[in-house]
């Protein structure tokens, strides 16, 4: 096999990290929201909100750090609408989710059109942090341990969330809000606050993922750039059954699919872009066909909590 040269492998693994990070953040965010009982179909809209605001602020302030803060804010902004409509008012989560996705697609494309009108300014490359020793490992080292700080942050979130879910009061409250909200209410906790917190936290994570796409991944904002990544995040959350570590593994798998095409092109194999774009979704369907039976979701998912009802 001449295909598996060093350049091919480095391109594959580095690409896996680059396209896996938005998926990881989307999956972790959706998992947080679903744990608390809110099926977040608006995740695609949150991602676009983060991608747009993150890019805009990074471009306007010429600071990558502020850009990421903006991305988090952009995601939270869309999530706040979700929290207001679906948690506070108890409206249909799927209808509002679709509305936020369509609305954010339109709004970010419109804003981009008004502000940059097809100029597509490009951001400079983001500086990386080189981890000593590990970065010297051949192939894997430069691909995984000489990366943008956000990549390390995203991976570090995994053990952090495991700790929150397993060991803290908050984790227990989140779980209860999704499985038996009435019990949480009887225990004196406010279900709506816990759920709102989860939705906003989801927005922050997903928005960061969106900002990663525009600031690190592409260097530009392109209308509709999230291209289903948020929805793949929902699949990851479904298959991970509440475990952050599984989201990480899934994100790595789908990230590899996303980057396989680029890596193949590096290796000199020419595939049409349309076929390339099908790969991750084919992988998702294949995994769902094989493991779909094991997908598990919280009992009260999708149901609004109204005090005193049943």
């Amino acid at each position: 096999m001449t295909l598996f040269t060093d350049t091919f492998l480095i391109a594959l693994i580095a690409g896996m990290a680059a396209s896996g990070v938005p998926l990881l953040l989307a999956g972790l965010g959706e998992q947080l929201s679903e744990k608390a009982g809110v099926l977040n179909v608006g995740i695609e809209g949150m991602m676009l909100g983060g991608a747009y605001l993150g890019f805009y602020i990074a471009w306007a302030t010429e600071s990558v750090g502020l850009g990421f803060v903006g991305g988090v804010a952009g995601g939270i902004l869309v999530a706040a609408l979700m929290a207001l409509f679906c948690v506070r008012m108890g409206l249909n989560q799927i209808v509002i989710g679709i509305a936020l996705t369509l609305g954010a697609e339109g709004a970010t494309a419109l804003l981009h059109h008004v502000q940059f009108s097809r100029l597509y300014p490009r951001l400079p490359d983001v500086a990386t942090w080189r981890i000593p020793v590990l970065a010297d490992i051949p192939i894997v080292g430069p691909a995984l341990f000489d990366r943008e700080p956000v990549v390390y942050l995203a991976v570090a979130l995994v053990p952090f969330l495991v700790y929150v879910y397993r060991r803290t009061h908050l984790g227990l409250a989140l779980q209860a809000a999704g499985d038996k909200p009435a019990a949480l209410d009887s225990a004196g906790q406010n279900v709506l606050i816990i759920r709102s917190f989860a939705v906003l936290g989801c927005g922050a994570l997903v928005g960061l993922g969106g900002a990663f796409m525009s600031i690190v991944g592409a260097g530009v904002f392109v209308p509709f750039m999230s291209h289903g990544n948020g929805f793949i995040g929902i699949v990851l959350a479904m298959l991970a059954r509440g475990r952050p570590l599984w989201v990480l593994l899934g994100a790595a798998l789908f990230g590899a699919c996303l980057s396989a095409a680029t890596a193949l092109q590096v290796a000199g194999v020419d595939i049409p872009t349309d076929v390339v774009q099908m790969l991750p979704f084919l992988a998702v369907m294949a995994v769902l066909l094989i493991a779909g039976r094991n997908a598990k979701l919280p009992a009260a998912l999708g149901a609004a909590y109204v005090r005193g009802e049943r």
Partner: protein
Amino acid sequence: MSADTMTDTAQTGNLQRKLHAISNTLLMSLGPVAAAFVLSGVILLILDVNPFSYYGYVFGRGLLSPTGVQATLTRMGPLLLIAASLIVAFRAGIWNLGGDAQFLVGAVFCAAFTPLMAPHVPVWIGLLAGAAISAIFGALWTLVPAFLRAYQGLNEIITTLMMNFLGISLASVLVKLVFLDPNTTVPQTRTLAVEDRLPTLFGTTISSGLIIGLVAILAVHFMMTKTAFGLRLRVVGGNASAAVHAGLAVPLLTVAVFAISGALAGLSGGVAILGQYGNVRADWNPGYSLAVVPLVFLARFNGFAAIGFVGLFSIMSIGAESAARRTGVPNYFTLVTIGILLVMLAISEYYGAKRQKAGA
């Protein structure tokens, strides 16, 4: 008081109640539309565009100009078929969000085979075959989500969305690599000759696809509300475990719903090709399905109301294209309006339910 006047008052009471219910429904449906127009107008103001002149262009082109209104009515045909596809699915409690791919896959296969057949068979056979091909491929594209939902209980929102992305890319691949017309340099399928297309109505340019759409949505409305099969589907949608206890073959019915819904979406693509476009160009995706989802909700899954909302949307989408050219507001703006419309709809539903509870 005589018996006659008593029945009279009972009747007027009934009538009043009916009128009240109708006005209530109208308010609940048109209120969100009005609110969405106002909010979108505010956004136009922020963009420094006069909302009155923007909407003036929209309705001037989409409704008041003779060519515009014919384009509006022609576009209604495929849109109504999409609405019918969604009503079947949503009434049965199935969230088929992959309509855009079902539409495109149906359209591409229809455009691939019909022009090859057309020269050798009578026009009506060619049209029937083309319509059948589009419906069959539209239905086939729902097969995987249908089985996953029916036999593994897997949420169809995700699977249909994934199949949506797959199908849109597949349609492009097929047009660019497989069904390419060798006689043109533009990547597109072979073109169906104008005389082999669906006839136009009464000497206008309106495609008879409009009639197909109207028939389909009314048929679906009556199937869901008046037939035993429709009742079964609604029971499945209302409460799947109750349906199991009632002895209904839930998995089979689920697959049937997916198939009908996918076939109608595919047929919508077929009608767009057979009546209007004649071929599929690479990367063509009008994105009708996700846009029609909110309209079907506004119509409360009612076929008659859906015709009205689809008509309004058709006017807006034809009109927006001309308004975009004149005012410089890109077409994305329609997406924002739809998002706002959905939110307004959900809010009106919220207050409607609250009022109902307060009344009870």
